[in-house]
């Protein structure tokens, strides 16, 4: 089955700074890739998805992600972080009604 690695368990950035969260996947064919955000006590919200076409995808809340097949990566970026972005972020890979998640990266935003 497909799998996802998020190398960073916890990242702290200052408000207004740029952000990049890393994600690497393992899958034999072209993957469907996703980023989700989870605020405390909440369910998961889909930020963006990639399944074909342009490798730079735009999502909600000012997030974007770039698919790099050669590196098996799908990193999430945001040019300027807001305090409300503090949350847990999950990368996921899906195929054939099977969606697997990474371990998550907890984002802390410093004032």
């Amino acid at each position: 089955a497909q799998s996802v690695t998020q190398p960073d368990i916890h990242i702290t950035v200052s408000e207004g700074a740029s952000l990049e969260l890393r994600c690497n996947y393992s899958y034999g064919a072209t993957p469907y890739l996703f980023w989700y955000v989870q605020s405390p006590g909440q369910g998961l919200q889909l930020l963006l998805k990639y399944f074909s076409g342009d490798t730079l995808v735009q999502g909600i809340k000012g997030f974007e992600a770039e698919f790099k097949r050669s590196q098996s990566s799908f990193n999430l970026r945001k040019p300027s972080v807001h305090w409300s972005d503090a949350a847990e972020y999950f990368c996921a890979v899906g195929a054939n009604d099977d969606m697997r998640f990474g371990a998550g990266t907890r984002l802390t935003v410093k004032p």
Partner: protein
Amino acid sequence: DTAVSQTPKYLVTQMGNDKSIKCEQNLGHDTMYWYKQDSKKFLKIMFSYNNKELIINETVPNRFSPKSPDKAHLNLHINSLELGDSAVYFCASSQGTELGAFFGQGTRLTVV
């Protein structure tokens, strides 16, 4: 109007009891999932169903039995609850894997 709804939101029960968690989606999706999120936030897929047919059964103990009466519902029944079953259980649905899944708000199960 909630897209994916789970009930109950909180469930506290004693070891050895049997309990059920219900999930309903009003999005018209064909696929539904159950995930377990442990205390370290790790999300593990348990089951997926497509149009009432079991697709994924991910090394889950037999005490866990999903039931899909129709494609809008996927309920999770757990027999003989154990302390290690304490977690947050999420239901989700999707229409085609490539479009991503919509998640419910979760059910926090505490076994004492």
